[in-house]
């Protein structure tokens, strides 16, 4: 077991929040077509409020801190917040679109010992990227930022989202990441907007694109292992918990709302009304999330994929039931292994074809 995995096990046993994702703003200079956020300031935490929250997080035992948005640099006090976070010795990862990062910001990130910067790049072609971000010239500025960050010796990850406008660009974007000397990740997850609007789901990649990604050894490593049928379901698997959301991790919005995860919009408290630790330890919602084991999931516990599925409880919650299936993950499991999920079979049996209509047999 790696030290990080060991650390996670220990945090789980001690009931500690090892990782927190803090969005410092929802404001953004881009308007990405697939984004789940609005971009208004509805009363963001002030600089001092954020510093107070950071102190509370450090006291609570948080080690990994993700600072994200919106675009973090839309806050004029972002470097002050970052400096303060680093003075509290968090391991800090920044998620940004990079548009506002120039040499000065890159140098400051290095001086402050930022662990990693994740930058959204949706294509190796400027026109495709800019059409997604709706900000002309954004690709050029983002790539320039990556070069600035690399010149400072920082670790950079290029994060792509697989969606209908960039389906043909994955190979080219991987090549661009290699050329720039940065890591590359691609995520096919597109979630409904924060206000419940599901129109963005039309950007979800179709089945054949998922299948292709899951069989790309540059992305998944050993394809045979990655796409192997799931192992037999054991008692250990059924006693397992779905993911770290609410167990060793949580999310805090720019307004101080605490949620189990950035993708799990179950309001669990607000740091303006209660201390972080009080919310973490006593929130009814977080306690409920923590109480759920795989065997408590009515449909998923009967599914062959239960031990290996990427089932997101937040997406399930957004579908209407945090104990229910997440259809997007059913689709991923199916496209990965060729074995339909229990949810798909149930829908087929009851005549609710829904997603099944879109599924095509493996070649």
């Amino acid at each position, binding site marked *: 077991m790696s*030290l990080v995995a060991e*650390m996670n096990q220990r945090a789980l046993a001690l009931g500690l929040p090892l990782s927190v994702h803090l969005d410092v703003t929802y404001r953004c200079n881009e308007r990405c077509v697939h984004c789940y956020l609005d971009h208004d300031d509805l009363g963001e935490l002030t600089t001092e409020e954020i510093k107070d929250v950071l102190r509370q997080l450090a006291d609570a035992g948080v080690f990994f801190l993700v600072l994200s948005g919106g675009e973090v640099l839309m806050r004029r006090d972002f470097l002050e917040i970052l400096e303060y976070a*680093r003075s509290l010795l968090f391991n800090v990862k920044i998620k940004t679109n990079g548009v506002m990062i120039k040499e000065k910001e890159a140098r400051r990130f290095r001086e402050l*010992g930022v662990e990693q910067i994740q930058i959204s790049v949706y294509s190796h072609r400027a026109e495709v990227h800019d059409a997604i971000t709706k900000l002309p010239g954004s690709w050029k500025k983002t790539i320039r930022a990556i070069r600035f960050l690399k010149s400072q010796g920082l670790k950079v990850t290029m994060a792509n989202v697989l969606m209908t406008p960039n389906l043909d660009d994955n190979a080219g974007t991987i090549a661009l990441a290699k050329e720039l000397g940065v890591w590359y990740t691609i995520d096919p997850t597109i979630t409904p907007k924060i206000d419940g609007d599901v129109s963005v789901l039309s950007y979800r990649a179709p089945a054949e694109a998922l299948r292709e990604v899951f069989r790309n050894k540059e992305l998944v490593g050993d394809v045979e292992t990655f796409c192997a049928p799931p192992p037999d379901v054991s008692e250990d698997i059924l006693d397992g918990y779905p993911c770290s959301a609410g167990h060793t991790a949580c999310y805090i919005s720019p307004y101080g709302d605490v949620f189990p995860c950035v993708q799990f919009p179950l309001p669990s408290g607000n740091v303006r009304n209660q201390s972080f630790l009080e919310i973490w330890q006593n929130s009814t919602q977080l306690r409920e999330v923590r109480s759920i084991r795989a065997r408590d999931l009515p449909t998923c516990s009967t599914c062959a994929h239960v031990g290996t599925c990427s089932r997101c409880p937040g997406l399930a919650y957004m579908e209407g039931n945090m104990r229910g299936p997440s259809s997007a993950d059913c689709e991923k499991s199916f496209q990965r292994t060729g074995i339909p999920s229990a949810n798909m079979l149930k829908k087929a049996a009851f005549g609710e074809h829904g997603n099944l209509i879109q599924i095509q047999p493996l070649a």
Partner: protein
Amino acid sequence: MAQKYIAKSSAIAARMLGGEMMIMSAKDSTFFTLNEVATVIWQAADGRTPLSEIVSQRLCQEFDVEPAVAARDAEQFVDELSQHGILLVSDTPIRDVASVSESK
């Protein structure tokens, strides 16, 4: 023998977790867990207190350990962490951590 001063690098993340200090280097992402004795040295690494004083005033006082053994173990610990850039070592007091880091 020259005095040795130690200070925590600015390029690390650290947190006490269940009684153990967890440290991660931002430079190479190396992870360390420190035992109780090493944690005392780590916490005392203020750049101003000589290592010999940390050994005599903290380790030998707080743990039942021979001075020679404590000194040897402390030296070994400091060498290892300094190789990963986690502790900064100087033969003069360290006032500006950034300047020592930059010179590495």
